[in-house]
């Protein structure tokens, strides 16, 4: 399976953390909070579509609110495949860090 990028990892984790409330705007806000940088709609939207088409996340319709003019939200969820991809990413990160730490320990 094709490995995910850092950006995709961020998105996947965000969606997991937001639980059932992950839609484009909430993802945007959460990421801005975590990274300290403002993220634009377009920076997120394309990767989200790609993730969905690869089957790492799934989407469904959420509630409609007045502030959206009565339009429904698109709520994202991470699929099992997505979770697996996230774990793989973490494993690679971990092994690299562990190697580095071992190296750093040697006198």
């Amino acid at each position: 399976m094709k490995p995910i990028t850092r950006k995709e990892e961020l998105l996947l984790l965000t969606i997991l953390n937001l639980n059932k409330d992950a839609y484009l705007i909430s993802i945007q806000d959460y990421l801005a909070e975590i990274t300290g940088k403002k993220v634009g709609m377009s920076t997120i939207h394309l990767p989200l579509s790609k993730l969905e088409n690869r089957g790492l996340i799934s989407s469904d319709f959420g509630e409609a609110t007045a502030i959206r003019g009565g339009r429904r939200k698109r709520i994202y969820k991470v699929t099992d495949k997505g979770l697996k991809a996230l774990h793989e990413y973490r494993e690679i990160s971990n092994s690299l860090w562990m190697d580095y730490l071992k190296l750093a320990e040697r006198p």
Partner: protein
Amino acid sequence: MDGLPEISGKAVMSSDKDSRCPRLYLSVFEKLASEREAETLTGDFEELYVRVENENGKFYSFFWFILLSISLIPSFIYNNIYWSSIMIKNYLKISLRNLKKYKGYSFINISGLAIGMACFILIMMYIQNELSWDKFHHKADNIYRVCNDLDFNMMGRNGWAVTEWKLADAIKNEYQEVLNSTHFYRFRNAIIDNNKMNSFENGYYADEHFLEIFTFPIINGDKNPDLKAPFTIVLSEKTAKKYFGDENPVGKVLHINSQYDVKVTGVISNIPENSHMKFDFLISSTTLETFPDMKRRLANWNSQFSYTYILLNDNKNHRALEKKLVDFVSKYKGEDSTSSYFLQKLTDIHLHSNLMADISANNDIRYIYLFASIGVFILLLACINYMNLSTARSSERAKEIGIRKVAGAQKKQLISQFIGESVIFVFLALLLAAILVFLFLPFFNSLINRNIEINIIQSFKIFVLFVLTLFFTSIFAGSYPAFYLSSFHPSKVLKHSSITGSTGTSLRNILVIFQFCVSIILISGTAVVFSQLHFIKNNRLGYNREHVIVLPLRTENVREGYELIKRNLLDKPDIKEVTGSVNLPTSITWRNGRTNIENGRGEMVEQATFNTYVNYDYLKVFEIEMKTGRFFSKDFPGDKIDGIVVNETLVNLMRWEQPVGKRIVFGDNTYKIIGVTGDIYFQSFEQAVKPLTIRFSSSNNNYLSARISSDNIPEVLEHFEKTMKKLHPEYPFNCYFLDDVFNRMYSSEHNLGKIFGCFSGIAIIIACLGLLGLASFNAARRTKEIGVRKVLGASIANITILLSREFTRFIIYANIIALPVAYYAMNKWLQNFVYRIDNNPLIFILSGILAFLLAVLTVSYKSIRAARANPVDSLRYE
């Protein structure tokens, strides 16, 4: 996510007065986003907008909106492409499944289409070849030929391609807009000798401007080979190789006709096929000017024998220049001259020129239009097949369409699906067509006597042609079935288990009738063209062309030895008669506009005549009929000096009751008529016979002609060769048959006949293929009905007739429409020929019957198969 697109529904929209986002922005956004995302994304946008406007105000928000929309474009594109490709994968799967499921129909359809496309492409390649004639000259747009519009008394006006020798220089001096001019004189059957071998070649005496105006690349020698000095020669690549092998011929010497020597000053690359001028060498025309017997002719303003071409500064001036030439005529040919000049564009010569004494046999633009329409029609027939078969089999797709519609497919989507299917289809057919074109190109080349190659430059044009054919065919042929299929009503389709497929039958029938109309017209056209050609070939034309061998006599030596040669030849009994003449009866072009002839009242009047010179036994060799008086005879030695023979046409023209004894005066010489021959058709069939005078040629016979028996032809040829080798060993031996010369004059009509024949055969094959498909589908549709009928006692014959009747009706309708059209069209074509066959309706009726029989055969093949099916099998499915 897999498979079908999400069905988007819209939630109820509350009023917009809660949000402060301008409606305009919202609608733009909605339009941009894909269907799937429109609602959710716009909602996100609206939510964000409120925030942004609160923080930064309306002005800032506007720019934010613009920037955001632009930045989202890549995303939109990506989504669009992704989902389209998913649908396309689905369509592809379904199409291929369909193709595999109905292999028989698919094969018939694809091969029919492929044959049609291959024919279309081949014809277009031929037409492109014809249209490219003479366009390789860099200055082609501004090159014009000066032609003569001579009025011969009582012979009517005719355009002539030949002009006076001095015209080229004069016209350049007189007019500024003529940047350059050149002239040349044809030198046919020149004997070129390099001391090791000799042979006949054809070329021109051309002046130094010839290579300046025309683009014939020099491959050996300097940029501008000398054609100014007398006795210089430029060779074509082929000729140089023939006489000098791989050596550089520049500077070397060749002997011409054992009369004079020339020095080679350059070699030009081989003349391309698509040039109306074809020559092996160019000898400087100043050479001609050194011959004392040519001097008078070259200076004569009443002798036309050279070809004059001019280079204009701007081709828009050509009309104006033509008008100015009226004054030119008065100045150089006298105030009372009735001739006039006109200009002919170089690139128009091949297809639009129909002049006398032209350099080569030209084609006719009307034939090009004809071939183009044949090509288009054949493609049309193939497309009609595709349309008919697709719609006939629509009942098989009905369920699929119904379900797609229920699942939310819009008509637009269905149409694009079916057009997409036809693109795949046509693409496959195109691949097959490409293979067919490649395979059949050599055959096609031999059919039309051309050498159309597929090289790199051509490949690109052909590729474009292929792509265009692909688009045209798939959209044109696919749109009808697409629209037809996409208009099925889901409820009707899903309720009944099958559509009978009887909808749309009437259009299908009309199309079948149209197909057969076209085929019948083509077949009868072919029949007429062939019979006219047959008529031309076999018509005696006043003389017998068959079994006549011609030997050109091109040197003084050989001409003087004529009598000896004749005696030697006659030793062999298979060689029955031998004669000599200045021209061959196939091409007498020497003419005089002002022959003085004594009319019935004893006065001398001017009459234009064609003239030739012949030797004894001319009548016997060519088996020409003598109407009155006698031919040149050894018993009357005076015949050689002042005897003259005329043809019937002259007699009728002069209205003589007693032609023998009348005087005819040429210059200082007076002749008396000794006899009248039957008319011989010495020009092409498109001209009426002109008046002809025949005088005696003692020692200037250009041709020796012999009538031989039809047996032992190889032996006879051997005897010819032996005789010539014995008497004139240094003379290159070359002889040919007279009927070959004749047939070459009709090469373009021959091509027409062959192309017609070939493609009408293909047209009817395509039409029958279509009929086969329809008939088999028809039979398949009615298997149950046939089963029931058989059980009730119908015989195979009954059922065959039942199934066939429907289609055979169409052929009869097609005949009724097509035959009168064909008759009318063929009549018009035959008007081109002064001497032609009677347009017998029988030919057309026979063609119609032929088409009918073929169609019946096709349909009944399928019908019989169906009729012989076991009713047990057909009624078993329930």
